[in-house]
């Protein structure tokens, strides 16, 4: 996967779900709830993991702080973040296709 001409590592599971959840504006706790509901409890993201990721994504320009509410910071994907997420989805789709072709 390439981002800005640079070869990117595949996203980890929490990275993927955090980016996915930020296609809509959400704050930290909402992200955690969204991921848990979406995956029916299969994937849970702890606050330590979540907030470290949010800091990193924001620093790398993949998400933006859109507003601050009382003790809550609401984020959303940037164009760059959307590109990264779509790249990962594409990679996963390709992998799934490959796996299907190998089904007996």
């Amino acid at each position, binding site marked *: 996967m390439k981002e800005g001409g640079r070869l990117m590592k595949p996203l*980890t599971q929490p990275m993927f779900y955090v980016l996915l959840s930020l296609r809509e504006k959400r704050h930290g706790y909402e992200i*955690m709830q969204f991921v848990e509901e979406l995956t029916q409890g299969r994937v849970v993201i702890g*606050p*330590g*993991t*979540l907030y*470290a990721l949010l*800091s990193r994504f924001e620093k790398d320009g993949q998400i933006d702080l859109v507003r601050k509410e009382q003790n809550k*910071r609401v984020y959303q994907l940037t164009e760059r973040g959307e590109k990264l997420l779509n790249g990962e989805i594409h990679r996963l789709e390709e992998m799934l296709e490959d796996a299907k072709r190998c089904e007996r």
Partner: protein
Amino acid sequence: MNWKWEINYLNINNYPYMEEHFESMAKKGWMIRKVMGGVFFIYEKICPKSLEFSITPYEMETLFTKKTKEELEEFHSVSERVGWEFVLKSFDLHVYVKEKGKKTVPLTTDEEEEFQNLEMIAKRYLKGQYVLLPILLLSNWFAFGLILNSVEGFKNGMIQWMGFFFPIALILSLLHIVDLRHFVKVNRENVKQGKSLEFSKKYQKISQLLMSLCYLLLLVMILYILYSILVLKNGVLAVSLLPLLIGLSMGMIYRNVIKPWRKNLLFKKGALVLTFILTIVLTLPTSFIAFDVLLGNHRELNAKPCGSSTIDREEGVLRRNRSLLVPVSYETVCESKKETIRTEYAKTLTEKTGEKLVVLYVKKEKEVLIGQYAPLVEKSFKTGIYEPSLQEVGLTKEAFEEYLMQEHGKEKAWERIYNESITEDSANWDVDEAYYLRKEKDVLVLRRGREVFYFEGVDCTKPHDVDKVKEILQRDES
């Protein structure tokens, strides 16, 4: 007692062990409340409980960014909503607690992400250590050079403090580098292979010992500075702290105002450079102004012990010092348009230290001679033409011509210069050691037991000056 403290060590490469430690302390009825400087742990007495602790890394600060209070509060409140109660923060590590068995979402749910976070923090720590390492090497060289080779190093407590602090800080810095590099290397490999993160207690004991010593020495330094300024009235030390205070204030402004600002990296870098330049601009003139003020305000020497120094005058600038090797010392300088009269008094720790101090005074004077006359000696021996100024230090034309013909003549000429300039005269002064340090006999060092006196600007060829010095020697120290 409702509180107790212990010396331990909490860092990014050992915190799971500390989680266990906090749990066992809670079982014994001690709840961790504060960790200061990563080593001083403070506990509160509670009813013994089965608690579960979780320590999570959350990077608080980089060179250009700093988390705001609101960001930190948000992190705590979300952690609380999923069942974890915030206990304390130690640098980038956040300690949480819950009752054992209570169902919660773990704070950290992905080891790979945890490692990425730890790696970022470790790299920042390492960068800091790489910057610190050459500074510490230079500081050690500087401190030990001064302690072993200079009169100032013998008398100045701050320099001797450096002799304790910098070697410990250097070892600690090296230890951190080795430890953190190993931690990052091992776990990078573990993450690649899908293994669990490895934490280590290998350097736990030595790190906690060295860090505690560093903090203790920092406390000693603060107490020494306060003592020197308030009790010894050491204005020079007070003045020399001004640039440091300005630097610290500017650093605080950068840290607390500019870092949390949500601006791009270029802006932050520019702000850092600007802060640095501003600090230098503010610091330099302050030092000069402050020294002027100091000279104007410290003419109050009538009460000083032996240091009244001047032969006929009783005013000047006094500087008092205390150090391990020389527990009591005074220096006074009286300047007029014509002359500078300097008196230095030292009561050393032992007689041997006194002897060493005399050796250092002699060495210092030899260095002055070399500084003044080495170009002339070199020139004379190179061209074979005698420089008449060498007569001042006892190297006559005849002697020079003799040495010129001899093997190692230059070394012999220097030996003569030293012997002519620095002469022993303890019998006349009724002390253990007495040296005139210049041919003119206007610089004198005397030792009587543990007491060392140094006079510069007196004329020991005049009975009046000799009597004055002898009178100073008879005065009580107090």
